[in-house]
Each structure stands twice: as C-alpha cells, then as structure tokens.
C-alpha cells in the first residue's frame, strides 16, 4: 500500500465507515471515497448539528483540501455535499455553535462558503433540502 495522501482525520473517518481499504489515497480510489462520504451522511440524527455531523463535515473538508485536482469531478461532488449540508442547517443554531466555528472558518478559507457567512448565510439552501443528505445517501447524485 502506498503512503496515504489523506490527513489522519480522513483515514480515521474512512476506516470507521468501512472504507479503511481506501486510505492509500490513490487517485483511482476517489469515486469510492465520495461514495463512502455520501453513504455515511448522518441523516436522521436527532441533533442535526451534533458531533457526528460535525465530524462528517470536518473529514470532508480535510478531504477536499487534500484531494488531487485531476479528479475534479469527485472533489466537486464533495464540495457540493459540504455546502449543501451547511446551507441546510438551521441558521441561527449553526452560527451560535462555538464548536462549529473552526469548520465554518475552514469552509470560508477553502472558498466553499461566502466570506460574509456570518452576516449573510443564504436564507434558502443552494440545493433543495430533501436532496441534501438522505437523498444522496444512495449515491444517486453524480
């Protein structure tokens, strides 16, 4: 197995969700990595801003920044998933959670979230809510 190109957080996440075999970071693995992220979306969780959701998004942000741009379509799939999930979250609750602040800052830094996020989080989601988490779990989106 070649040396992993993923951060530890991504490797841990993939391992915990049955994707441990993907941790080499080989480019050809990317479609499967995206599938694992989709399949592990914490939909149906009682607390939509709970630790499982935060861990999922954090690992995804790490993965987005580490992935090779030659597989842009897969990077893009994760970018869309990340953004959609953020924009679907209850706004006031999201911005009020200190634990989420580093993730949101990271999203801004990666160009995934608007610079003025804290002042103008879009009132409506970029992607329809039903399509965000549960809708993509089966991998129907590309």
């Amino acid at each position, binding site marked *: 197995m070649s040396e992993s190109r993923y951060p530890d957080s991504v490797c841990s996440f993939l391992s915990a969700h049955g994707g441990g075999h993907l941790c080499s970071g080989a480019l050809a693995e990317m479609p499967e990595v995206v599938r694992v992220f989709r399949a592990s979306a914490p939909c149906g969780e009682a607390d939509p801003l709970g630790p499982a959701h935060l861990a999922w998004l954090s690992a995804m942000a790490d993965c987005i920044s580490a992935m090779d*741009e030659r597989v842009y379509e897969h990077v893009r799939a994760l970018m869309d998933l990340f953004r959609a999930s953020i924009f679907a979250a209850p706004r006031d609750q999201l911005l009020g959670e200190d634990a989420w602040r580093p993730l949101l800052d990271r999203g801004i830094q990666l160009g995934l979230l608007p610079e003025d996020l804290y002042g103008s989080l879009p009132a409506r989601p*970029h992607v329809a809510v039903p399509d965000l988490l549960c809708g993509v779990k089966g991998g129907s989106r590309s």
Partner: protein
Amino acid sequence: MKLLFCSARSASVLLREDGDYYLPFPVALSLNGENLGEERRSLVSLFGLLPDTEYELSLFRPGADPETLSFRTESETCTLDVRRFGASGDGSTDDTPALQAAIACCPPGGRVLLPPGRYLSGPLFLRSHITLELQKDAVLALSTDRSRFPILPGVTFPTCGEKDLLLGSQEGNPLDSFAAALTGVEVEDVNLIGEGIIDGQGPDGDWWVRPKEKNRSWRGNLLLLERCKRITVQGLTFRNSPFWNLHPLFSEDLDFLNVNVEAPSNSPNTDGFDPESCRRIRLLGALFSVGDDCIAIKSGKIWQGRELKIPCEDLEIAYCAMLDGHGGVTVGSEMAGGVRRVRVHHCWMRGNDRGLRIKSRRGRGRQAVVDDIRFEDIRMEGVKMPLVVNCMYFCDPDGHSAFVQSRDPQPVDEGTPTIGSIVFERVRAEGCQACAGYILGLPEQPVESLTVRDSVFSFRENAPALVPAMAENVPAVHNRGFIARFIRELKVENVTMDRIDGPMVAEE
C-alpha cells in the same frame, strides 16, 4: 481575392483558395499602387492602414491579368499610445500599470497602440469595443515573477442564485489558474492586431520546471478569452507561453487570422490553439511550431461536460501550417461536452506525430460526442501517423484501469462516449511511418464511420516501428495501412498507398 476581415488599421485577404498555407506559386502585391513585394502565403494581413480610407489591393502573376480587390477601412475614435500613459518599453521597467491604464481608458472604437519597444508586463485584462495593436518590433514580454500574477479563481459559488462563476481553468476543470498575458472575460468586439510579439518568456521563468506541480496556482496562457464574443486576433506572434498559448473558452464568433505560435519542441504543454466549448471559430492562415499539439479542440473533462453541456462546434481551420507539434489537429482528450462540425481544409502539416488525433475514453460521458470531423485538401510531410482515433486513451488517474482499457463490451451508460462521422478527403501524406490510420473504438460503442477518399499515403522505406495509439496492448507497427478495431463503417475509396506491408485495411 476575398476580404476576410477589415479594421480601421488592418485587413486580411485570402489571395487564392487552391493552396494551403502557401500559394501554389508566388504572387506580387501592390496596395494603392505601392509595391508590397512578393507573397507566398495564401492568406495575407495588411497593417499600417488609415481609418475610413479606400484601398485597392492588386495581385499580379505571370501570364495572367491582374486581380484587384477594393475595400474601405473602418473608422476609429482615437488612438491611445501607451507611452503617453507612462510605459517605457525598455524591457526592464514594469509597464503593467501604464498598459492596463491605457486599456481601461480606451473609449469604444478606440485603439491602444504599442509602438516598437519591449514592454515588460504582468497579465493585462481586456475591455470591450477596443483595438489593441502591437506594431512591428513591439514585444509584450510577460513577467516571469509568478508571485505578482493575479489568480483567476476556478469556481466561485454564488451569493444568490444558482450559477457558479467559473474563471480559472486548467485542462478541462475549473481550477485556480494564473491570468493570461492577455485575459478577456465577457468582453465583446475586440481586435487584437499587429505584427508584434507576445512573449511568455517561458525559458526565462520557472513555468516549464516541474510543470505538473501546482505552484501557487496552475499555469496560465498567453491569451485567454472566456465567455467572449466577436473577437479578432490578427497577425500577432505568440511565443514561449507558460502553458497553452491561445485558449478561447465558452466563447463564440472568433477569428484568428495569420497568427504565429512558437514554442520549443520540448516545452511542456505549450499547445498552440485550444478552443474549449466554443462555437463559430475561424482559424485561418496560422503557423504553428510548438511543444505539444498545434491545435487541440476541447470541451472539458467529466464535470464540465456533464454539468455545463457546452460542446465545441462549428470550427473552420484552413490555410494553416502545423509544424513539429505532437498532433496537427487533436480532438480531446477533454471532450466531455462534445465536439462537432469541425472542418480542417487546405492545411500543411510537417513532422507531427499525428495529423488528426481524436482522444476519448470510457467515462467521458453521454455528452462526449465527437461528430462530423472533416479533413479536406491536406498536405502532410513526415507525419508519422496521419489519423489516430483512440477511445481508450490512458489519461487520468484511472486511465490504465480495466474500466478504461477493457476490449470486452461494457454496459452503455451515462459515461459512454461516442465517435460519429470522420471524413478524410484529398489528403496527400508523404513520409508516413507507422500506419495511415489507427482506429480503436469501444466494443460497446464502435466508431460510427470513417471515410477516406481520393487520398494518397506513402511511407518511408523500412520506417521504424511506433506505437500508434496511447492505449494498453497496442503493438508497435510500421508501414501499415488502416488498422481498425470496433468501427461500424470504414470506407476507403480511390486511395493509394505506397510501401505498405499487408492489406490497406486490416481489422485487428
């Protein structure tokens, strides 16, 4: 003679239609009675004209009556000389602010003029309805200090609405990339004219060192036209680009006339002309000698093709010379949006690896349809393989995988690309080496049709064997005719081949 383009200061004229880059014989020209000397090219551009003025161009050849063409130049609102804006043109002062100021201040119908001199500059951004002229002996020398280059963000998500803003582009993906020496974003009605040079100074910077590594950003072009309309590029020489030279993207109604594109044969990815997801383009009378493909017609990689669905279509490439680049005319491999209605005619190719090369692979998608590609009246000298169609091109991280390379039929699905009709007509190819043509379709989606008509292919004697296509398990060959696999219809009519081993057409 046929007038193809006329600005306030220039004109382009097709002298005869029966040559290629060169005329069948030299002619003499005069303009309003003034002798212009001998001309050997089929397409000629005239500079130094005056606005709103009548001209008469005369063509002379022995044993024939003179031909004349009358035309009137366009009007012009003003000329802004960049030296009046503070440009030094000494080759060492950073002239970026002065040049950009002149462009920004130019009113509609005006001309920004770079007189003779060497103008060191970072990337400049164009604006609509102006002419930018680099006179003979004017050089726009692109800075080599990438730390001072602006970056075009690949994707910017919308604040409101649904549409992403795509700016930076790299090999078919929206990725952060350095701005081009001349960048036009959503500009219209611009003329870039003159006998001057836009010099990327590739050998003097670090652009060609570890070129596949992202260094602050991806490499930029010498000319990027993004979502532009009605742009004419005439007469200019583009030299030593950091990356692809000319890159029109999502643009339409573009003319490139008598441009020259030069880069060393070993310079990485210095494609000459890469229109991507554009329509209605004319590339006429251009001369290429570059380090990669002379012309590469594209429409994005998978995400771009699937999401944007913008093909590259209605292209005319004629009276051009393509010397020494890897491919004369290449389609792909980023062709996920489709490429159609491309007519290449009256061109001269010399020393290329391949004349026409179509590259595709499984996964490019349902939109990835290449259709109606015509090669007519083409002269090739020492082109190793005049035609290669490869649907198993081993690009991208999974290019060598069984998914891409399997010769067993795979399910036809949303990832399956299509190759439609290709026509080779009146092609004269001398000094071929490997084969006249190599066609590798997909078993589940064969190439629809290839017609080769009224053509001649002659080979070097005992030419060295070469691998004709970049796919797995393709053996090296030499002195072969057409080798085809997974094609529905292959018509060969009135074709002769000289010094070939085996049949003219073989399915293997």
